[in-house]
């Protein structure tokens, strides 16, 4: 089609300047709106070690988690999965959130509701989430559960397994294990050490009767998790995906002590 006027130099410069300003503002906004701060800025690097030779599959961790995080009975942040036999004894795979260093859920979340804390914990901002469930599709570990309906009424895990420490999530957002950040943060504020003092340690670790779960700081070479990983063979789930989980497993072996 024929244009009425050719684009004048002034108009062109004006448009270019406006487009440039918009780009700069957009980039600034994107930086400001980023949910995740710099990972590693914290002096802690939390990790969990799960010893499969000790786990008996009792499921105490699942129930303690449900009580302390007020999780509905239809959802498990911490599943315990039967994982075959070693030397004639059944083995189990307790599966919390892996708190991946390269978490697919954080990378795909369009609103940044999934984000990294400075200490590496993968967190959910339940007030920001729009419930699109892309994170659920992206997670290789099935660690996320969507709230298909509102959780009303009493929590059957309370008070037998503990008291709720965090608010219930609304309907329409996915929820997942947080390594019990509420316990970690409150514990640190009171001068306690997560992984050492039970009040500052994730509920599943405290509840485990077999002491199969250990929590601690990988930045501290004297922590129990650092010591275990230095002295035992370990593996992480789906390492081929490059997600670099912060949950380490010590495999059940033939010569494992009873």
């Amino acid at each position, binding site marked *: 089609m024929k244009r009425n006027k050719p684009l004048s130099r002034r108009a062109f410069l004006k448009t270019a300047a406006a487009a440039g300003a918009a780009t700069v503002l957009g980039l600034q906004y994107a930086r400001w709106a980023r949910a995740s701060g710099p990972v590693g800025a914290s002096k802690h690097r939390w990790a969990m070690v799960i010893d499969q030779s000790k786990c008996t599959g009792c499921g105490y961790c699942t129930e303690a988690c449900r009580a302390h995080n007020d999780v509905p009975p239809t959802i498990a942040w911490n599943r315990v999965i039967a994982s075959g036999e070693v030397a004639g004894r059944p083995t189990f795979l307790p599966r919390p959130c892996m708190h991946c260093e390269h978490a697919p859920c954080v990378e795909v979340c369009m609103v940044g509701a999934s984000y990294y804390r400075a200490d590496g914990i993968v967190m959910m901002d339940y007030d920001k989430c729009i*419930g699109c469930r892309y994170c659920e599709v992206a997670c290789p570990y099935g660690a996320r559960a969507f709230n298909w309906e509102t959780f009303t009424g009493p929590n059957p895990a309370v008070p037998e397994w503990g008291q709720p420490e965090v608010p219930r999530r609304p309907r329409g957002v996915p929820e997942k294990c947080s390594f019990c950040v509420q316990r970690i943060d409150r514990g640190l504020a009171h001068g306690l050490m997560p992984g050492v003092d039970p009040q500052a340690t994730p509920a599943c670790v405290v509840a485990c009767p077999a002491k199969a779960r250990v929590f601690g700081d990988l930045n501290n070479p004297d922590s129990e998790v650092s010591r275990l990983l230095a002295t035992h063979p370990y593996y992480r789930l789906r390492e081929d995906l490059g997600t670099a989980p912060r949950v380490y497993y010590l495999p059940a072996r033939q010569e494992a002590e009873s």
Partner: protein
Amino acid sequence: MTARLQQLRRLPRFWLWVGALGVVLAVAAAAGVIVLWKGLVVTNLNDLVPWGLWIAIDLSSIALSAGAFLLCAAVYLLGLKRYQPVARTATFVGLIGYSMAMLCLFMDIGQPFRFWHALIYWNTHSVLWEVTMCIMSYFTVLVFETMPIVAGAGWFKRRWPRLAGWMSGVHHYAPFLALIGLGLSSLHQSSLGATYGVLKARPIWYKPDLSVLFILSAAAAGPALTVLASMLAARLTPKARVDDSLLERIAHVIGWVLVGYLYFRFWDAFSMTYTYWPGRNEGLDMLTGGQLAFNFWVGEILLGALVPAVLLLVPRFRRLPWLRMVALALVVGGVVAYRWDINLVGQLVLLTYLPTEIAARYTTYTPALIEWAVGAGIVAYGLLAFSLGVRYLNIVDHGQPVEAEAHPAPAPALSPAAGD
């Protein structure tokens, strides 16, 4: 009673059609209220299959709207002015398609009233962020592109002459809008495929091909819907007038796009057969011999691409309007089948994460009745909007002289636009 029936028979066909759509819409509105009230628990979606029928309709609506950016680019950027009246129809179809997609997403997300979070909270790393931004921006472009169409309607001009003058002035910017539309659409039409393609945990999806296949299939199906809708409208109402030679030439191009799509699709599927990759081969097996096999072979490949490619490329077949319409309808069905299959296959095949065995597990998904009701309502809304557009906005009208459309004589009442 018989008197009533006769009265009903005397009602114009158009209003019977609108009434039927109205019934579907009423049912869908009730279903939608139930979903908003009770939550997504009333659907058959679950933690293993979180994306179902509504996402398939959403993806299909976007793909079927692709005619808008392609025809606008052809008219305003390549200078194929003859096709301007078809681009007009395509723009309106696009506007409807994108609004359908947004309705789907509103129903599908768990926190529908936080939809605006997508605008202010940014994770620029997310493919879905880019898709959302593109869709919002492109919808705005479509609104601007539709303004001259609305302003051209006689009843609108009479009632709001000043507004009509301003709105028809927007057509001066049509080339810019076409350029922006081309950019935005090239981005999100392909990155909707990448939304699936970047997920490493789902081997059947995890490949760059998906973005190529998504935009190629959209390039075939989008114009196909526009041409089909124009032909149908011209046969059903005197309000729609078409120049069949234009539509035939577009149909010819669609035939070649289908050949290109089939070529890439063939290599996409064939290359997956070479080595075993847990999850990927199980996904391919599900498409070629499992629960999605009929959809794949018949819906996507045979009826969705091969048969229409032949019908549209052989002049003898293409010149028969009814056969051309059948072919175009098959293309539209083919892209819907493709989006349905792709969305489901990556979710129905699950990979375990047990260290001893990375093995595939299977699940199933059948949409609940309430999902069908809402989905049907969204489609009915699209049909209703198009029908009203044909009747009141002359969106299918190849009879208008093209030049007059591009340079309307400024009526005295429209003086604000005249200075433009």
